[in-house]
C-alpha cells in the first residue's frame, strides 16, 4: 500500500470543515485526479498527505509509516519521499534553475553541508537528469524568474524528481497556465508517472483534463469523498452530482467540448 488515509478529518480553527471522515487507499503507480468545487477540500486533502496541514483526527500512512504521528527527522524523511507541485510553482525566483532543482536534494544532506551551498557532483547529475526529463536542461543556469510559466512549472517537476520521490502531489498544477502549456505539463506528469512508476495525485478543476490523464478519479464535495472510480465511471451525471449542479463550460479546458456539455445539461 502506497498511501492510506484512515478516518481522516480536518476542521480548521475558524470552524470550517476541510475533510470529513476520509478513507482512501492509493496503490503504487496510480494517476489519481481529484475533482470538486473550489472549497470542496481538494487542496486540504493533498496537503494533509505530506502534512503541510495537520489533520484533526485520523491517520495517514505513507509506505506503512504514519506521517500524522511522525516528527523531526522521521517526518522530514517521509516528506523527502513526496514531491509537491504547486499552482504558483513556488520556485526561488532570484536563483538559477539548477539551484532550484538542487533544493530538492536538501533532505539527503546534513544541515551543515547544505549551509555551505555545495552539493556533491552526483546531486548535480541527478538535478540535470531531472531537467532533461522535462526537456529544459538547457535552462539550467538561467535565473528561474526568466522562464515562462510552463517552464517554471517544469522546473518544479524537476525539483520533485530530484527528490527521487515515489509520490508526486500536484495542487492545481496547471491553473495558472495557458491551454497549450497545460497539456505539456500534464503530459510531463503522465510520462513521469508511467516511466518512473511514480504515484501521482493531482487536483484539477478541468474535467476533460481529469478524464484524459487519470487512471482513477476521486470526487470531493464539502470535504467528503462522493465518488471514487475509473474514468469510464465518471460520467457527466456523476460529475454533476460531485459538483452539486450541472457541469459548466468553464470547467472544461477544451472549448469545443463545451458544446457537448451544454447539450447534455
Amino acid at each position, binding site marked *: 500500500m502506497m498511501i492510506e488515509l484512515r478516518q481522516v478529518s480536518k476542521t480548521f480553527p475558524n470552524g470550517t470543515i476541510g475533510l470529513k471522515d476520509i478513507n482512501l487507499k492509493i496503490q503504487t503507480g496510480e494517476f489519481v485526479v481529484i475533482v470538486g468545487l473550489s472549497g470542496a477540500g481538494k487542496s486540504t486533502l493533498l496537503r494533509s498527505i505530506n502534512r503541510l496541514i495537520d489533520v484533526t483526527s485520523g491517520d495517514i500512512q505513507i509506505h506503512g509509516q504514519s506521517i500524522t504521528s511522525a516528527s523531526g527527522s522521521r517526518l*522530514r524523511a517521509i516528506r523527502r519521499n513526496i514531491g509537491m507541485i504547486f499552482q504558483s510553482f513556488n520556485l526561488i525566483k*532570484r536563483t538559477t534553475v539548477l539551484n532550484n532543482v538542487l*533544493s530538492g536534494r536538501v533532505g539527503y544532506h546534513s544541515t551543515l553541508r547544505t549551509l555551505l551551498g555545495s552539493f556533491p557532483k552526483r546531486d548535480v547529475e541527478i538535478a540535470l537528469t531531472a531537467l532533461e526529463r522535462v526537456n529544459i536542461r538547457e535552462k539550467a543556469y538561467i535565473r528561474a524568474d526568466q522562464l515562462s510559466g510552463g517552464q517554471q512549472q517544469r522546473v518544479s517537476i524537476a525539483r520533485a524528481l530530484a527528490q527521487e520521490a515515489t509520490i508526486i502531489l500536484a495542487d492545481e498544477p496547471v491553473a495558472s497556465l495557458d491551454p497549450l502549456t497545460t497539456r505539456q505539463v500534464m503530459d510531463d506528469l503522465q510520462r513521469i508517472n508511467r516511466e518512473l512508476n511514480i504515484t501521482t495525485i493531482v487536483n484539477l478543476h478541468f474535467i476533460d483534463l481529469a478524464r484524459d490523464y487519470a487512471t482513477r478519479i476521486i470526487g470531493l464535495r464539502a470535504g467528503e469523498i462522493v465518488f471514487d472510480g475509473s474514468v469510464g465511471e465518471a460520467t457527466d451525471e456523476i460529475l454533476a452530482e460531485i459538483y452539486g*449542479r450541472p457541469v459548466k463550460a468553464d470547467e472544461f479546458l477544451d472549448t469545443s467540448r463545451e458544446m457537448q456539455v451544454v447539450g447534455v445539461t
Partner: protein
Amino acid sequence: MRLDIKSTNPTSTPSIPSSPNDSISNALDKPRRGKRIATWMLFIVILVVCSLYIDVTPYQLFVGLPEMGVLLKEMFPPDWSYLPTIWAPTLQTIKIAVAGTILGAIPAIPAALFSANNITPFKSVSLPIRTLLNLVRTVPDLLFAAVFVAVFGIGPFAGMLALLFFSFGIIAKLTYETVEAIDPGPLEAMTAVGATRIQLIVFGVIPQALPAFISYLLYTFEINIRAATVLGFVGAGGIGLLLNQSLGLFRYDRAATIIILTLAVVLIIDNASTRIRRKLL
C-alpha cells in the same frame, strides 16, 4: 448545498448597509469641518505655548542673523593647510562607520529571523527580541556614544560600539519586516521537500530577503557616516573631535575645511550607496 448559503449571503447583505451608510457620512460631514479647524487651532496654541516657554521667538532670529554673517566671513577662506592634518581623522570616521555598520548587521540577521513571525512561530522567542530591538532603537546614537566613552574611555572604539548598536537596531527591525513579507510559497515548497528549519532559511528566506538586507545595510551606513562625524563631540573618535576643537578655539577657517571635507565624503558615499541600492531592488 453549502453553496446556497454562500450565494444568498452576498445578495442580501449589500442592500442593508447602503442606506445607513449614507446617513452616517452625512451626519459626519459637519462635525468633521469643525474638528479640522479645532485641530489646527490646538496645533497653533501648542506651538506658541512651547515657544514662549523655551524663549524661542522670531526676535532671536533677527538678532542672531548678523552673527551668522560674521561667522561665515571668518570661515572664508578655509584654511586648506589644515587638510593634511584632518585627513587621518576623516578616514578614521569612515572606518568607524564601516566597522559599526557591518558588526551591527551581523547580529541583526539572527535577530531578524527570530523576530519574524513566519520563521519563528513562537511568541516567547520573538516578543523578547522585538522588545529588545525597540529598546535599542529608542536610544539615540550620541547617547550610546557618551555611555560607551564613559565605560571604554575616549576613542574610536566607543564610537564604533555606539554605531554597532544603532545599526543593529535599525537593520534588524527593517529586515524582520521584510522577512515577514516574503513570498511564503518557496517556504512551503522547502517544507514539502523535507528541509530542516535552517535549510528552509538558507534556501527559502535568504535568497528572497538578501537584496533588501544589503539595501538596509547601505542605508544605515549612509546614516552612520553622518553620525560618525559628530561622535567626536562626546569623545568617541573621528573628525568630530577636531571640529569641536576648531570651533572652541574660534578657528572657523579650520572648521570650514573640516565641514567641506566631511560634506564631500558624505556626498560621495551617499551617491554611491544610493546607486547600488537602486540596482539591488
